């Protein structure tokens, strides 16, 4: 073995390796080739084993040549590897194509019930004005539901609330959330700003606008200087928040035994906007709630001195608000729980 022969072998190895690398069919073959050529027991190492037979002064030269050859082979393998991977990725991507127009895997979407959602919307609006939520029982005593609200037994105004009575004497299913006014006044000191949401019951045949179970939201505000004008201002804000800033409102006399003066509050018809249509009974207005200044008798039953304290109360049906807002024309849908109906809400 002499120097020339050895360098010749190295050059041969290089050219053969270059050709093999360039011809490697895929990454796996290339990897095998790399091991065959450059591995610990590879051909380059085998060639270099002959270096021991050379004179000492020739060895550095062979080392230099061997390095060049190794680098050359490595570069060739790298180069081939890069081109192979590019092609293989393309092939994989082509293989992995899907029909992107198919629908996705569905995720079940839930929904909140519109009655309770309307209640939450109402509460959120009044919360901005400092109103806090309080609840009171659904099974009430006659005294709190009627008498303490200035509706004595056999009073003709009782016709306004057809009542379901229960088999516990003196008790009934509350016909409105108004008895909560008494409970709040008895337990909280003015200034009072509360909302009383909840389920109510009436002896009422079911039709498109009546039900025997429904929800109501009562509002009560009492302190030393709360006026009818404040009630009007607040309800205007409410109507604008709920139905849109430009909506016109109307304040007119109403009648409730527990308020004096009493108020009916209308908003311009959301369907026709004023000229009159079937939805508004050709009046151009939709009544959305009843209200008034808390009656002095009620204040006294609440433990408050009507000479010092005054305030207002209002009551509305969240279902009615929801119907107006969403264009629903049949109250029965709320208790029917047809999922096709419920699924339209968030």
């Amino acid at each position, binding site marked *: 073995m002499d120097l020339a022969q050895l360098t010749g072998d190295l050059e041969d190895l290089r050219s053969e390796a270059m050709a093999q690398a360039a011809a490697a069919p895929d990454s796996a073959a290339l990897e095998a080739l790399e091991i065959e050529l450059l591995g610990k027991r590879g051909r380059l190492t085998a060639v270099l084993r002959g270096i021991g037979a050379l004179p000492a002064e020739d060895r550095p030269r062979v080392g230099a040549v061997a390095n060049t050859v190794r680098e050359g082979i490595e570069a060739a393998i790298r180069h081939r590897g890069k081109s192979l991977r590019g092609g293989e990725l393309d092939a994989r991507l082509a293989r992995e194509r899907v029909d992107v127009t*198919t629908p996705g*895997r*569905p*995720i*079940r979407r*839930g*929904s*909140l*019930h519109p009655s*309770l959602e309307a209640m*939450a919307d109402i*509460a959120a609006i009044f919360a901005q004005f*400092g109103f*806090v*939520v309080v609840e009171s029982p*659904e*099974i009430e005593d006659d005294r709190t539901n009627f*008498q303490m609200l*200035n509706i*004595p037994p*056999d009073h*003709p105004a009782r016709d*306004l609330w057809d009542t379901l*009575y*229960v*088999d*516990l004497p003196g*008790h009934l*299913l509350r016909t409105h959330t108004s008895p909560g006014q008494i409970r709040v006044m008895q337990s909280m000191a003015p*200034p009072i*700003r509360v909302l009383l949401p909840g389920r109510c019951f009436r*002896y009422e*045949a079911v039709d498109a606008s009546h039900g025997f*179970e429904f929800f109501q939201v009562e509002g009560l505000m009492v*302190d*030393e200087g709360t*006026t*009818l*004008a*404040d009630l*009007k*201002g607040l309800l205007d*804000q409410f109507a604008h928040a709920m139905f849109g800033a430009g909506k016109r409102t109307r*304040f*007119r*006399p*109403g*009648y409730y035994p527990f308020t*004096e*003066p009493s108020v009916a509050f209308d908003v311009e018809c959301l369907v026709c906007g004023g000229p009159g249509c079937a939805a508004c*009974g050709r009046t151009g207005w939709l009544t959305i709630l009843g209200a008034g*200044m808390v009656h*002095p008798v009620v204040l006294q039953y609440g433990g408050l001195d*009507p000479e010092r304290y005054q305030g207002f109360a209002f009551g509305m049906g969240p279902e009615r608000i929801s119907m107006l807002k969403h264009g629903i024309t049949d109250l029965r849908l*709320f208790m029917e*729980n*047809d*999922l096709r109906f*419920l*699924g339209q809400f968030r």
Partner: protein
Amino acid sequence: MRVPLSWLRDYVDLEQSPDWIARRLTLLGMEVKGIEHRGLEWRNVVVGELLSVERHPRADRLSLTRVTTGSGEPLEIVCGATNIAAGDRVPVALPGAVLPGDRRIERTEKMGVVSNGMLCSGDELQLTADADGIMILPADTPLGVPLAGLYGDVVLDVDVKPNRGDALSIVGLAREIAAVTGTSVRFPDSTVTEAGRPTPERLRVDVEDPTLCSRFVGRWVEDVRVGPSPASVQMRLIAAGVRPVSNVVDASNYVMVELGKPIHIFDAAAVHDGRIVVRLARPGERLVTLDHVDRELHPETLLIADAAGPLGIAGVMGGAESEVSDATRNVVVESAIFDPISIRRTAFRYGLRSEASLRFEKGQEHRLARIGADRTARLVAEWAGGTVAPGVVDTHPAEPPPARVAFRPARVNRLLGTALAPAEQAAVLERVGLAIEAGGAGDDPTTAGSGAGVNVRVAAGERPLVVEADPADVLVAVVPTWRRDIEIEADIAEEVARIHGYDLVPSTLPSTSMPPFRSSPLELRDGLRRALVGAGLREVVTHALVAPASLDRVRWREPVDVADGETEARGTPIAVTNPLSADHSVLRQSLVASLLDIVASNARRGRPDVAIFEVGKGYGRVGQTTSEWWRLALALWGPLDQPAWNRPARDADLDDAKGLVALVAGYLGLGEPSYTPVPSEPSLHPGRAAEVRAIDGTGATGLAGRIGELHPSLVEAWDVRGRVIVAELSVRGLTAGQLPVPRAVAPSRQPDVERDVAVVVTEDRPSGELEMVIRASAGPLLRHVRLFDVYRGAPLAAEERSLAFRLRFAAADRTLIEAEVEAAMAAVVRALETAGGRLRS
């Protein structure tokens, strides 16, 4: 109340359009619910004159008439009535006409003769009650004119509130309109021409209890001829919604609509010796009322009676025997005032609420008894002939003076948020007939205070309150006797606002102090609801009132634990004593049956899956107290994950429901829920039912309840295919709680160490029990245990299964050393073996 505008115009000048009147009344608090244009439906009905009336050539009962409508060729019209003669002017419905009830008139052939339209009866036009004869119009009625132009009317449907009985009358509404238009009311004429023997010599009235009948005014009219009322009267009554009966009865109804005063008229021949007694019914007494029902009278019933017995139920319904008939010659007019409560109770007791009893219930102006008697007598004489006997019988002729209500104009402004000067307030009130005086003027005993002040009534009724005010700050309103609703200062404030106009009340925002913060009782409930909606469930709201059968179908037999601080479900069901239907007659004690109803109804509609929840109440009674408890219930049926081309169908099972329970527990910061088998709950599948519980870090129960697959017999009862999974949970804070604030700790920087252990047990050993064994034995380093695999089959025995748990160990402050973990695992293995498990390797 139905108000024909033609009638209203008798008492007040009113040029404005019906829409204007309706709007004004509404703004006065007399809400107009509808406007009916009567006569609009009589299209193509005109006035004609009969030129000739001959017998129909082929039918004895028909007449052949020739009619002119003033222009064009005379029309031949066949007619069945017999009250017609040549020269009569009659309503003619021409071909193409449409009559009330959508009855279309065409040219027809009747027994070989062509009839070119129809002659109309009053009944066919819904103008009068006469259905037998053709309506004969006054001879001077212009020919060819559309009938709508002559007899058309506009009728307002006015919702008069219960406190304004005075406005439940044409005159009362005329007063309201006069107040806004600034005109005055023409009161109906109640003067009578009297002759003959005086009334007091013919009639005597004794009232046994004047608190039940504060006034009875009686009049006597002799020699009446009972027959139909004049057509114009019938038209008015029909327009007002009252059926015409006869001239005498119509007179009483007319006065009721006109003045709001219910009147009753007796056949005088039925009143023995002309002696009337107003008294309560005696035990066992009976009366056949006008509707021909023989009634046993309750002893609280106030009667109009004579020596022989009851003549009628006071204020509610007369007796058949004393009813005015065609044979009646002399009549007694009763115009009385009864106790409103007594009338209301009696009308309810007999199910006889009427226009009359409604008006009595609301209270009557004392003066109206006299006016009503006079007006009725006048109308009876006018329409039925006869002679009104001189004078009246009157049990309480002294009429009370008008009420005097003191008010402080400053207080009115403070209530309304207005700045109306006292003089302005006075002027507004005077428009509705209140006379305003200065405070302390004269020596008025009703408002004079104990000192120099004037008494102002702030509240009346059950909680009266009177305060004494400086006369300089007070005005006194003298209230017309018909305004029985104005009693206290706040009533005056309302009247000021009402007449001044609610629209003129300013719109301001409250400037008073804000109340302190208070957390919402809905917070936790709302949070949970949103969490479940996020998990794909739909919220439902179902009836609290259910059928008794539904109550029995799903009733937890085993006692169910409740979360700490929540109300337990207990007590007997509460029933409604006057239910609308048996389907909604008791208050529910569990929400589950209601949810099953919703599952079933949606399944019937073809829905393939239902995943719903409700947060609602159960109700019960213990002794004399009632109890209401909040629960969260859910029901799953069909696939929970919607099947699709890329996901196979899989019906929801118990594990899906458990996943939702774990979601709730996790949302509330509770530990993993634990389950205990409940094999004996009749509503649930005995092998797929559990008691669930989740506790918080302190060991308190945060969630507890029942979960399981519905028993197949109930699935069948609800007519649903497949399996239904239900759960009903008591959750701490559902009643009025706040969402717990999570404690957050920094995650450990030391890696956790995980070890698996698989234990073989017989099928009857619950996994939950073995998990408890692991937790109890693993020592303080254990952070988490999770069942991750269940294996059955070789080499295990037939009744065996292998449960594989993954345990996670960690220490907050250091890296665990191998030996610690091995020691803990050794303890776990020992404990599992002691518990009867065999380690699987």
